[in-house]
């Protein structure tokens, strides 16, 4: 089982490496969207740092969103999804390898880049750290929940927009706790409560999302 799981992970990462432009799209989207706000609103540090948590989190959310429909689409059209379903291992387990690959390619770079963008918003040092922690705990949820939406909309016309409509409402708790964590630390309070809740949402989706994704994939392939 471990071998098959690692094969799925390695195959997705190797493909992403050979198509680096796809990763760049996600990252540039995040950088550009989050850089437009300071340009549009003006350089007032007090205003910028008060909108920063929400803006950065929404930008991270949308950046993860645009790559979601790609998660299973190629596998579906070239037939490797059928082969994945016919592998003699539990599909829900193999799906976690695909989700992890998606997070490593689309989530992790955003987490690493976020503190740099945070500087544009005059965020204090401590808030920058909380931003990184909150994204680190929250972005896996985005990939996990997003996988359900991506699997449900396989083979549907205009699936990109449909995924957004399905998945964005489910992102709301992550957004509230993530942006809330950064905001509380800006106000000099401890962000621990928000971060714990974020971790709880992540763990819950880690348990439920792979099973739901596997079921959705079986329906889509049928």
């Amino acid at each position, binding site marked *: 089982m471990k071998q098959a799981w690692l094969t799925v992970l390695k195959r997705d990462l190797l493909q992403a490496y050979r198509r680096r432009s796809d990763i760049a799209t996600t990252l540039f989207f995040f950088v550009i969207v989050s850089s437009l706000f300071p340009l549009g609103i003006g350089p007032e540090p007090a205003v910028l740092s008060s909108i920063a948590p929400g803006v950065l989190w929404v930008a991270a959310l949308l950046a993860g969103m645009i790559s979601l429909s790609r998660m299973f689409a*190629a596998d579906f059209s070239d*037939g490797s999804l059928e*082969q994945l379903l*016919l592998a*003699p291992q539990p599909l829900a387990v193999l799906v976690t390898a695909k989700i992890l690959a998606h997070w490593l390619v689309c989530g992790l770079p955003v987490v690493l880049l976020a503190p740099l963008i945070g500087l544009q918003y005059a965020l204090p040092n401590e808030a920058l750290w909380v931003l990184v922690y909150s994204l680190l705990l929250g972005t896996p949820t985005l990939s996990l929940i997003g996988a359900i939406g991506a699997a449900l909309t396989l083979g549907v016309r205009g699936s990109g927009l449909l995924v957004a409509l399905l998945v964005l409402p489910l992102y709301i708790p992550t957004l509230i706790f993530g942006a809330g964590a950064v905001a509380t630390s800006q106000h000099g309070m401890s962000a621990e409560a928000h971060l714990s809740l974020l971790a709880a949402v992540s763990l819950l989706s880690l348990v439920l999302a792979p099973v739901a994704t596997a079921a959705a994939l079986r329906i889509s392939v049928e």
Partner: protein
Amino acid sequence: MLKAQGLACVRGDRLLFKDLSFAIDAGSLLYVLGENGSGKSSLLRMLCGLLLPEQGEVLWADKPIKANAEQYLANLKYLGHLNGLKDDLSALENLQMGARLSGQEVTEASALAALNAIGIARCAHLPARVLSQGQKRRVALAALWLSASPLWILDEPFAALDVQATEVLAARIGEHLAGGGMAIITSHQDVPIKAKSTFTVSLSA
């Protein structure tokens, strides 16, 4: 070993077939015949468990395949219309990773030997996206040289192949059957395959 009991298939609101029953044992070859759209591919997908039958059930070693999915899938090699190749990976990588996914450990040498057997070894390091339709099909079929699964379900395996490759593949399927394997095949071409016993199932549109 593999038994189908009273299978019925409905796609959309059309009934494609019903009351379809057959059984095959070690060494037998089953041809599924029928016109385009008569439900051949649906039947094969049903036998794999990708498609749920409207009625009836599929049994492997007298157990329903749904209840023993992992055990059944470990004995199955399916090749559908789609080749399951990744455009950005080389033929060799595709073959190796495909085999590992189905739980086999494959060395580079044995994967190359498989590609060589179906005459595509010189493209081993080319990415799948630059290969022609027939070449891609050959890379996908090369997995049959690595497969130790007793049951092969092949949907139009000879489509897009040239005469030489067709002969090589027919010989490989014959070898598999002689070794106690089973094969279920759809084909529009009349390719002679040596088998202990050959059955046909005809579907009418």
